[in-house]
């Protein structure tokens, strides 16, 4: 890596000729320039603020917000049970990481040893669940009111951004996968429909689509009194979409645990099926037994202990529907337009990924007797994933950052809230800096996660 070392330089010219020394000098010079630039910017800002007699610093975060927010998620407080839970999760992840390093050094993987897989399961799920069981009662959340601080208000915005981004990424991926595959369909109509969708949606700015979904659709929806009802389950009006929400009963935890246990069982059954197939080529049934086990276990628990969840329906009380699960028009418009828009881009990524898999692979699969669906699932998509992941990461980043457009339609995400804070507290620079840090954290976390996934999916060269 390093260039061959020479003797110690005798003069300044010799020092300059030395590539190592030169590299150092460059680095230091650039660092100095950047440092000076940052310093000038900082000093200049501070001076200007002082001159204008405005307040600065982050003390405003503790002041009372005294403005209302329409869309509120409970903000968990970092104390008691939550700290225990976080410690359990982080410790579990760290131990699993160490375990995988250790296995790698031995030239093996965790997946090769069933006992290790069980250990990983316990570390990642068992221990946090146990912690939740013992100290779950001490987890506390703040329900934002006007009397809370600017800091809590910002957290509410952050959670709203997180909510719409997370759900948006999942939905956009599913829709994009579907669209991308249909675009390559041999069915002319399906392929053309998909192409038309992609070309239209991809070429209209997101903000325009957002306004269209929000204003144009909202205007056509009825007032709460004349809501559209779908079998009394979903209620749609210009105040939002209302769905029944499950209210956990006494044995809900037990019910959830039994489902988790069954899923774990299914996972190990799948391992077993796969190992058996690898060894002997014999295919054991997987899908039907899994579904049957899930239905049987959950049904049995349901029968013995009674209904785990009671559905709560929204009712019209006063001006609006109360109760149930409420999706506000702002959130729904945001989610729909982010999903539709990003899905069009993901579809193209999926298409390029599939087309990057050489035709020979597909032909080989067909000549081995695999059916169309199997070829796609077992041969093409796993190889296409390798090509798709890096551009997919950037689409997820885009989606998260685009959620800041929510401010245009009054969705209470982080830019909207910090905009309000800027105006009500009168401090502009600190809230904007904070917003940038928040988005940077979001983006870097997504990148990190996707890079890890990329490294895992990468062709393992032996």
């Amino acid at each position, binding site marked *: 890596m390093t260039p061959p070392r020479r003797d110690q330089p005798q003069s300044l010219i010799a020092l300059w000729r030395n590539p190592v020394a030169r590299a150092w000098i460059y680095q230091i010079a650039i660092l100095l320039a950047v440092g*000076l630039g940052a310093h000038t910017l900082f000093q200049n800002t501070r001076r200007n603020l002082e001159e*204008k007699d405005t307040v600065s610093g982050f003390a405003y975060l503790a002041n009372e917000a005294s403005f209302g927010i329409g869309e509120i998620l409970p903000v968990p407080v970092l104390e008691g049970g939550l700290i225990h839970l976080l410690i359990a999760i982080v410790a579990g992840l760290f131990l699993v990481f160490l375990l995988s390093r250790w296995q790698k050094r031995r030239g093996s993987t965790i997946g090769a040893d069933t006992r290790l897989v069980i250990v990983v399961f316990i570390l990642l799920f068992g221990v946090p669940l146990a912690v939740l069981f013992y100290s779950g009662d001490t987890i506390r959340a703040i329900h934002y009111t*006007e009397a809370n601080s600017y800091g809590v208000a910002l957290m509410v915005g952050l959670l709203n951004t997180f909510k719409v981004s997370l759900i948006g990424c999942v939905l956009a991926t599913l829709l994009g996968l579907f669209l991308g595959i249909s675009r390559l369909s041999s069915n002319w109509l399906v392929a053309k429909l998909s192409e038309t969708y992609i070309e239209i949606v991809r070429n209209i700015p997101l903000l325009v689509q957002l306004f269209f979904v929000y204003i144009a659709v909202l205007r056509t929806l009825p007032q709460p009194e004349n809501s559209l009802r779908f079998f009394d389950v979903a209620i749609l009006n210009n105040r939002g979409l209302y769905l029944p929400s499950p209210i956990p009963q006494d044995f809900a935890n037990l019910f959830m645990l039994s489902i988790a246990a069954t899923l774990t069982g299914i996972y190990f059954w799948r391992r077993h099926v796969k190992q058996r197939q690898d060894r002997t080529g014999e295919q054991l049934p997987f899908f039907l037994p899994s579904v049957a086990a899930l239905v049987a276990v959950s049904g049995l628990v349901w029968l013995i202990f009674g209904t785990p969840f009671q559905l709560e329906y929204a009712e019209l009380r006063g*001006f609006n529907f109360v109760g149930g699960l409420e999706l506000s028009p702002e959130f729904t418009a945001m989610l729909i337009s982010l999903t539709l828009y990003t899905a069009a881009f993901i579809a193209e990524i999926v298409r390029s990924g599939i087309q990057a898999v050489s035709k020979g692979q597909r032909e080989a699969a067909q000549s081995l007797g695999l059916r169309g669906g199997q070829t796609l699932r077992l041969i093409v998509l796993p190889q296409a994933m390798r090509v798709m992941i890096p551009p997919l990461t950037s689409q997820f980043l885009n989606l998260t950052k685009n959620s800041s457009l929510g*401010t*245009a*339609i009054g969705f209470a995400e982080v830019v909207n809230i910090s905009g309000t804070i800027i105006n*009500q507290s*009168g401090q*502009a620079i600190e809230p904007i800096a904070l917003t940038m840090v928040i988005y940077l954290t979001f983006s870097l976390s997504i990148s990190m996660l996707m890079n890890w996934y990329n490294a895992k999916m990468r062709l393992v060269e032996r």
Partner: protein
Amino acid sequence: MKSNVMIVVAFIVGAVLAYLVLSFTGSEPATTQEEATAPGLLETIVSRGELKCGVSGTLPGFASLNSSGEMVGFDVDFCKATAAAIGVGLSIEALTAKERFTALQSGRVDVLYRNTTWTMSRDVKLGLDFHGVNYYDGQGFMVRKDGKIKNAKDMDGATVCVDTGTTTELNLADYFRSNGMKYKPVVFEGADKARAAYEAGRCDVHTTDASGLAGQRSALKNPNDHIILPEIISKEPLGPVTVHGDNKWGDVVRWVLNVLVVAEEKGITQSNVEQMAGSSKDPEVQRMLGKTGTFGADLGLSKDWAVKAIPSGGNYGEIFERNIGKSTPLKLDRGLNQLWSKGGLLYAPPIR
């Protein structure tokens, strides 16, 4: 591995050097500070030949585009009078409630005539100076005529559309909190967006200052389907704002506003100002219109500053009637904005 070590060492050395350099330059800013404050805003405006005035731009009656694309309204007329008094051109900037203070602090505009409520925190904390009141307002509520809300106490549980970054947003929260009622705010950036959402039926109630509501109502498709509730829940003295500390520029803004009010008191109008300047026997009018005294020069303006200011839009009463008065779609009553001598709150200090 070796190159990593090199990078780390380079960073440390660089950081130390940077710190040393910075600690030498750190003491310097004191001198540049004095230079920065030296030319006042008034001189800058005169040498620029243009006054940059920040208005709302989306509030009919106060500042909005007319059919020929010009910005017109009550607030715009005060901008025009100020520019005319200085004798410079005028450039109007439409600002959202959220942008306005940052725009003022960063020098994008010289003065705000943007229905801005004078509050203590804005005055003492934001580095702003308020120069009187050009409209005494209060927060009101607009609802649908055929809806369930007949007075403000019926609003429990209602959804309310509101413009972000306003005192309205805070008063709203206070009002519902103090009355033990619940509400759901939907917060928009820009009064026009809040209005569009209210019109689309997203909200039961639209709230802003009562004068603003009158303007918003006039811009709705069927203004007669909507009423403004009689309850007023706050004090909203709206007035011109400049950055804190530039007193000379502040004086100009304050006295242009005052002179328009005094002009109404003295019966000086758009049409008779030239004639009054020549023939009035009233010593206060003579001082005001520059026939006697040195008020123009004292402000840093020309002698006939008031004679130039008044023709642009007339006196306070004329500006009011033309933009938001009885003959306009807003149909606002003078109410609190009547002269003190006629039962209102308008009371300009004497020109003496």
